[in-house]
Each structure stands twice: as structure tokens, then as C-alpha cells.
């Protein structure tokens, strides 16, 4: 017979959080590979973008990028609110971030409309549409998750000590915002300022 103490701890993330973290790892790789492919084509091209076409503009994309990155703030706020037990703060935070995310998504669709090239024109266009489109798909998925969590928030399902879905959503949301830093710098900024 041996005896020893088995203390328990709550200071650890849930399995759902870890699952999301692993999903994010593999998703990051998807974007890394795509951006790697983009720079590979760009480095081996004689002229970029090919055919002397105009790249994307910063006039709209810059403010809307800040809108997307800014949407992380209300998510932080929502998480902090439910940790204090504030249902109202949670609902408002989620709602504001959803609106900001939706605004960015609207810009992406508008941008696809505005650019002067199609995705069949050349490899640059193909890369641009696929990378930006895939990111938009991620924003859309984040919005879907946001709505689901928001419904649960309105039903009052979360408490100060149980809000795993909020945590998981927040992780994903920040990830989608972080990816846009790399996509924006690669496809917009570095195309314009050279």
C-alpha cells in the first residue's frame, strides 16, 4: 500500500481548445504553403504581376484590414466579460465582432468585383483569388461559429466558469485575423510598395 495526494487542477485547457489549436496548426500550414507557392511563382517570374496588369489597391483594403484586425478587440472584450460573469458584455462583444467581420467579408466580395484581372488570366490572378478567397471562406466559417455561440449566449448558456465555446471561437477568430496579416502584406502591400 502506498499513499499519495492527488490534487486536482482547473488550470488547463479543454480538449475542444486543444482540438482547435491542432486544427489551426494544420490550417496555418495551408496558408504557409499557398503563400510559399505565391512567392515561388513571383520569384521565378520575369515580370510580376505578369502581363503588366495592375495589382490590388490599398485605398479600400487598408481600412478594411484594420476593421478585421480590430474585430479581435470585441472578442477579447467578450471573453473578459463572461469571465466576470457579464452576459451583456459577452453578447455585445460577440455581436460587434460579427458585424466587423461581416463588413470585411463584404469588402472581399467587392474587391473581387473591382480587380481588373480574373483567376484564369494568369498564375498571379489564380493565386490572388484562391488565397484571398480561402481566407474569406475562413472569415465566413468564423462568422458561422460566432452566430452559433451568440445564440447560446442569448440563451444564457455560459457562466463565469463555463465558457469553452467562447474560448474556442476566440482562438479561431484571432487565427483568421492573424492570417490576414500575412496575406495582406504579401498580396496587397508588397505588390504596391516595391
Amino acid at each position, binding site marked *: 500500500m502506498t499513499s499519495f495526494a*492527488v490534487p486536482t487542477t*482547473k488550470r*488547463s485547457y479543454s*480538449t475542444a481548445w486543444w*482540438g482547435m489549436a491542432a486544427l489551426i496548426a494544420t490550417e496555418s500550414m495551408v496558408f504557409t504553403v499557398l503563400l510559399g*507557392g505565391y512567392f*515561388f511563382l513571383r520569384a521565378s517570374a520575369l515580370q510580376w504581376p505578369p502581363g503588366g496588369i495592375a495589382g490590388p489597391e490599398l485605398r479600400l483594403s487598408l481600412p478594411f484590414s484594420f476593421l478585421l484586425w480590430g474585430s479581435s478587440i470585441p472578442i477579447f472584450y467578450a471573453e473578459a466579460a463572461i469571465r466576470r460573469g457579464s452576459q451583456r458584455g459577452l453578447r455585445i462583444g460577440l455581436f460587434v465582432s460579427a458585424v466587423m467581420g461581416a463588413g470585411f467579408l463584404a469588402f472581399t466580395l467587392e474587391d473581387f468585383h473591382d480587380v481588373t484581372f480574373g483567376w484564369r488570366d*494568369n498564375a498571379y490572378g489564380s493565386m490572388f483569388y484562391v488565397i484571398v478567397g480561402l481566407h474569406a471562406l475562413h472569415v465566413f466559417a468564423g462568422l458561422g461559429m460566432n452566430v452559433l455561440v451568440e445564440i447560446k449566449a442569448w440563451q444564457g448558456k455560459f457562466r463565469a466558469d463555463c465558457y469553452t465555446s467562447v474560448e474556442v471561437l476566440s482562438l479561431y477568430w484571432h487565427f483568421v485575423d492573424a492570417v490576414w496579416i500575412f496575406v495582406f502584406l504579401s498580396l496587397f502591400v508588397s505588390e504596391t510598395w516595391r
Partner: protein
Amino acid sequence: MAIIDQAPDAPDAATLERIEHRWLDAPGIPGFFTTVDHKRIGVRYIYTSFVFFFLAGLAALVMRDQLASSNNNVLAPETYNALFTLHGTTMIFLFNTPVLAGFGNYLVPLQIGSRDMAFPRLNAFSYWVFLFAGLLLYSSVVVGHPPDGGWFAYVPLTDKAYSPAINIDFWGLAIIFVGISTTAGAINFIVTIFKMRAPGMTFNRMPVFVWSMLVFSFMVIFAVPAVTIAAALLEFDRLFGTAFYTPGAGGSALLYQHLFWFWGHPEVYILFVPATGMVSMMVAVFSRRVLAGYVWIVTSLVSVGFISFGVWVHHMFATGLPALALAFFAGVSLLITIPSGVQFFAWIATMWKGTVELTVPMLFTVGFLLIFLLGGITGVMVSILPFDWAVTDSYFVVAHLHYVLNGAVVFPIFGALYYWLPKMTGRMLSERLGKVSFWVMFVGFNLTFFPMHILGIIGMPRRVWTYSNGLGWDTLNLIVSLGSVLFGLGTGITLLNWAISLRRGRPAPANPWDADSLEWAVASPPPEYNFAQIPVVSSRHPLWDDDGAPAAVPVLADAAEGRDPSVRSLALEGAADKTTTITSGRDTRPFEVLEIPEQTVVPFVLALGLAAFFAGLLIEATVVGVLGVAIAVAALLRWVWRTDMDRA
């Protein structure tokens, strides 16, 4: 204060029956489509991948029939192309990867002392996606348009311009589809291994097979995106006319090779690492001593995982890349021999210091060591640039890759079949038939693949459907073909042995091999709930005491009275409630309770929806695709909505 009970009293039969009743799947067909039991899913993975193994093996035998003599025309060249494409694709994507995932599914929860995986429904989903992806690929054979661009489907050959028919689309879409399965499985393994280990099973006490599945999973989540993107961009080019791989429009055919091999080389080790994990388990048990150099072996597994991401260009030595890049990748390719060598010597040391018992699993293990030695040596040879340039695209490479992918992966898998099938089916396999099977396979293997080295050096290229006589290749090719028949026969004997054991095999005791890991602490086959009481682990070898004699697994005697629900879930009541314990990642303290989800058809429906989506893309039928997405979204919403992850 909790008491560890060294020799727990067995719970009485009535209690166990009550617990079992809570866990039993619904009978019949509904139960088949709705199960989330990791053991049923694991076995299903293994059976399904062996069906694909059989098909791919048959393809190989037909090819060897064609190549047995010069100017042969058993097969049309087009058929030959389709056969080698299907053979390679099936072996990599539909046999080797999923069969290892199947063993992992079955064994990981048992070896870490859990009642199931972290995400049981995701587990079911992974299986269904794998099955549907396999069916998608093989439906090409049914409609008479099998993919024929080689297993790595290089552009420009696979571009629309040169392969206008639907054949390549089957390949591209199936590769993307099966990647979802592999990735979902890997995420599940990572979380399971991090969060579901029994109290006391710290990282330095994990069985090497669990370590290898952890490395496998990390490699999968970082490598698979590359092949998914490679195939996705190919399909964008083919289906929608984009220009990723079109040189005239700024695209690059070389980009495809980079993307493909950025996955392709880690993939070799994705297969090899779990196989070595199996070897480490079997070597120790059948040398009747603890594994020599546990820490060295684990460190090697992890470093192989890292280094394997820096060698992909050695598949592209002949593509005209800058010399500096070639030198770097040749150097890293040589570097990877170090951790592989460390493992090799650790196994030899284990056998040297132990008392080797030549059971069938051990025979396959020793056979693996010999074959891997040769495959490793030719690996060093082809990592040296001038040598690679001389033999690239010749049969030397075919010989090398089969020594590592067939010999060094399939032999451990066959050993693992003899070792672990008794646990899964409750029936022992025949040792005598097993020994016959091993020797026929071993001789057949070397007769098949060794002469290919020579054929390659004297100039026979890969992927030719026939060759003229007078080149001096006839005799060796005939030996290769006869050897392949022998090898096929040897594998057939094991499959027969497997089938016979299911009907007439000797019933397997809980621990037929006097092994040390936790899966042998429970009955063969294990009860639905795995562990009535979750064990407490205090050593690397829970079933051996300090002298290597059998030891009972301790449990927390007063877990049922624990203050925290997570501690109570360790006890019988936890099993009776259909729960298992989530522990904190590093120090494995009970942390939370996982309620095992009830049976559900949702994962099946989600996989079906995705299958319809891919089928819609394939036949360019928008209705089918949209319908598939709608089904998938509906299933996903129901899944998410029914998951109550927000409990205190």
C-alpha cells in the same frame, strides 16, 4: 489522500454487466453506421485497408506478369500506366497510412489507459471519409477511367492539355478527400495523447508506440496540407482553367513538385515512424527485457519528425535546381541517417542484452531489421548527388523505395498483426503458418526487390511497360516476377491464417506474450469500456515489476469517494456513467470528465455529404455538389449544436 491499491479486487460480475450494458452498441445495421467505439473503428480501418492492400498487390502481380519477359503484351501500355498509378496511390494513401491509423485507433486509448479517444465522433468521421475516398478512387476503375499519371501525378502530363479525360480528376479529388480523413485522425491522436493519459502516465512513461503515433500526427498536420494544396491547385487548373502550373501564364510545373514532395518526403517517415514504434514494442517484449535506450529512441523519433521536413528536394535532384540547394538537401538527407541509426543500434542492444524469443512477431521484426539495413544503405547512396543522377528514374530507385516502404513498413505491420490481432479478435494466430508465411515473404521479398538494384544500375528505367530483348534484362526480370509471386503467396498465407484464426484459433488470454503495456491488462478482446477502473501508472512498464515479473496494475482504491468529479470518473462509477477521465497534459492529474458521446449517424452523414460534394466536382454536376454541401452543413450544424462543451 488517496490510496493506490496494488492488487485491486475484481468488480463483481453483476456490476460489470451493468457497465457493459451502458456501453453496448445497438445491434445490427444501425449500430454499424452509428458506432463511435474506437476499437470497432480501429478494426474497421485495418480490415478496409487490407482490402485495398489486396487490390494494390494484385495490380503489382499483374504488372510483374507483363514484365516477366521482354516484348511482352499481356497488358496494353495504357492499362500498365493505370495499374502502376493505382498500385502506388493505393499503397500509400489507402493502405499504409490508414492501416497505421487503424492500429493507432485501436491501441492508443488502451495503451494510455483511457476509455476512448478524445473525439469519438470525429474518429468515426475519419473512418467514413477514408472509406468514401477509397471508393471514389476505385469508382474510376468501374467506369473505365482509372488515373494513369503515376502516383505522384506530375504536371504537365496531368494537365488538362495532356490528360483531357476524367482519369486524373479521380486521383486529384480522392487525394484531397482522403487528406481530410488523415488530418482529422491526427488531430484526434494529438489531443487524445495529450489529454487522456491515465494518472501517472507522464510523457517519459508513454509506450514508444504512443510516442510514434504522436510524432506521426504532428507530421501529418504539418505535411498533409502541402499535398492537399498540390492536388487542389491541379484540380483548379483542370476543372476551372486557372494557371497555377501553366508556364506560359506565369505558372510553374516545378511548383507542383515542390508542393508534392514537401508532403511526400515527410510522408515516408509518417509511415516509417509508427512502424518503428511497433518494432520498439515487439523487440522489448520478445527480448524479455526493457527497451535499451528508451530516451534515445524517443529523441530519434522526434528528430526524424523534424529533419524529414528538410529533405524533400532529394526527390528533385534531377530537375536542374541551383547547386547550393542540392548540396543543402543532400546534406540533410545524410543527416537523417543518424537518428535512424541510433534506433537501429538501440534495437540491437535490446536483443543483445536480452533473451530473444523467436515468435512470429519477432521473426517479422528481425526480418525488418535486415531489410531496413539494406534500404537504409541504398538511401545513403541515393542521397549522394552524383550517384542519384546516375540511377534516378531507374529500377534502383524502385528497389530502394520498396525496401523502405514495403520491407521496413509492411514487415512491422505483419509482425503487429500477429502480435495484436489476438487482442482484437480474442483468437491466437497459428505460429506454424505464421513462420511459413514469414519465410515465404522474406525470400519472396528479396527475390523481388534485390535484383531491381542491379536492373537499375544496368539501365532499366522505371515506368516502362515493356522492354526489348538483348538488353540483358530478361533473366533478372523473370527472377523478380517469380519472387513477386512468392511474396504474394507469403502475404496470402498470413491472410489465410487470419481467416482461420477467426473461426478456429485458440482463445487468446489477456496477456499472451507476457507484455508490459496496458492494453494487455484487459481481456482479449477488451470490454467496450476498456477499463472498468482507470489504472494508475507508476512506471514505464505497468505490467512488469522491477524484476520483469508480471505485476497487477494498481488503481486508486478510494477514487469513488474523490471530491472532484474527475477523480470519481476513474472509478467504476465513471465507467457506469459512460465517461472517461481527462487529465492535465503534462503531469496527468485528473482534470475533467469526458462524457463519451452516444451512438450517432451524424459523422456518417457528414462524410456522405462531403463525398457527394467531391462527386459533384468530379462529374461537374453543380446540383450534386450543392446538395453535398447542404447535407454536410446540416450535419455539421447538428453535430455542433448537440455538443455541450460548456460544462463547469
